[in-house]
């Protein structure tokens, strides 16, 4: 038994040591991207209209088109790396990908391990209910008496936990965490949850697609601006991306994209 304990501790110590060796500093990330001629960008392509795949597997959406233009202006090829939303920040942190665009909101917690670009769009939160829902939701806090669904790892999940669950208004067992918003919306329609909190824009898209749902409240609660996720303290890349975002805003490019993807 003792030997096993020693063996286990050795394995753990070894993996910690190896983890500590990670992240060797390169001269300049932007330079190496340009030299390779490719920027690897992560996204979670299951979040229309920001990012999704069409039926032939091509990535489409607001973020997709925006990032394609950014890569074009950086004069590099764009290589998409699709992974679940939860894994994206860790992948940027570990240098598995150069950046990530996936409708990320700024949070202080996220900012500690990665950096954000300037905002390229400002999003709102929405509460969606199934048709036939009677209880009024006038203030956002009113949702506390219902079964509330939300996507794991999002700012909405943080908002619900920090403001409603923390002060006891929303019992923890009434907060339902989902891997994906569309799954949650289907559960909402099926009556397993009563209110769904999500980004306003995808909520609108899903309400239209699924039917039998309606948005009863929208406003800026948790979300606000959305940004591109970049490696921590990668000032050069951040500046390059920010400059391009500013250009695109000046030219009205982003506004046109928003009309194309978000117009009702």
């Amino acid at each position, binding site marked *: 038994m003792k030997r096993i304990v020693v063996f286990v501790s050795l394995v753990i110590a070894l993996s910690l040591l190896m983890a500590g060796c990670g992240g060797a500093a390169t001269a300049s990330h932007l330079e190496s991207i340009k030299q390779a001629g490719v920027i690897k960008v992560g996204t979670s392509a299951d979040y229309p209209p920001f990012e999704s795949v069409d039926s032939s597997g091509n990535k489409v959406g607001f973020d997709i088109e925006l990032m394609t233009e950014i890569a074009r202006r950086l004069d590099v090829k764009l290589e998409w790396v699709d992974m679940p939303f939860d894994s994206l920040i860790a992948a940027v942190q*570990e240098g598995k990908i150069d950046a990530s665009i996936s409708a990320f909101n700024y949070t202080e917690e996220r900012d500690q391990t990665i950096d954000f670009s300037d905002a390229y769009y400002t999003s709102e939160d929405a509460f969606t209910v199934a048709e036939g829902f009677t209880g009024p939701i006038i203030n956002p806090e009113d949702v506390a008496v219902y079964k509330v669904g939300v996507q794991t790892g999002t700012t909405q999940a943080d908002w619900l936990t920090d403001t409603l669950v923390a002060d006891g208004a929303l019992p923890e067992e009434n907060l339902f965490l989902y891997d994906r918003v569309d799954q949650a919306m289907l559960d909402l329609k099926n009556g397993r949850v009563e209110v769904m909190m999500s980004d306003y824009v995808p909520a609108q898209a899903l309400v239209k697609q699924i039917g039998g749902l309606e948005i009863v409240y929208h406003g800026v609660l948790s979300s606000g601006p959305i940004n591109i996720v970049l490696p921590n303290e990668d000032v050069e890349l951040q500046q390059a991306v920010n400059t391009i975002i500013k250009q695109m805003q000046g030219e009205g490019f982003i506004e046109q994209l928003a009309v194309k993807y978000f117009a009702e």
Partner: protein
Amino acid sequence: MGNFFSYIVQGAAITLAVTLIALPFGLALGLLMALVHTYGGKFLNRIAAAYSLLLRGVPPIVLLFILYFVLSGTVNLSPFWAGSFSLGIVSSAYQMEILRGALLAVGGGQMTAARAIGMSRLQSIQHIILPQALRLAIPPWSNEVSIVLKDSSLVYALGVPEILRRAQQLSATTQQPFLAYGTAALIYFVLVFASNRALDHLSERTKLPTHS
């Protein structure tokens, strides 16, 4: 709609590739550990036991994340290889137990007899024990094959676009989860069914008359 199916079916090639890397890798490692556990000395025996205990005690997905995110500083593996190797490592612990069972089923008498006619330990294992043990291991091993096939769906978490990840994406795009996941389920079933049938057949063909 045709595209819809072909997009998921293309994922089956990746699922198969992950399985075909993980299984033999796990088999080689598992066989080595099973031999070490059965015929190694006291110390090696303990190490092999700890290996099995540790790996069978950790959910495959946790090991997957450790290999991909924690060890990525030293070994730069792509999601595909990291996923395939971690599945192989997890599977090796289970394959080790399967093979160990088979080795024990062959029995110590065979080893004694082989040594008595002048074979070395290694020769006995190679020519007497293994040919019998591997045959005995096929039925329980076919179980492990289906488990690895199905567990290959875990690599979606690293962004490998296999069957499950593609079904998720199409479910999000089309809002038809039943169709998307149903298609995925059907493909998994066909793969598992076909591989089990093939292994049943192999087991019948290779059965020794002494083992009925």
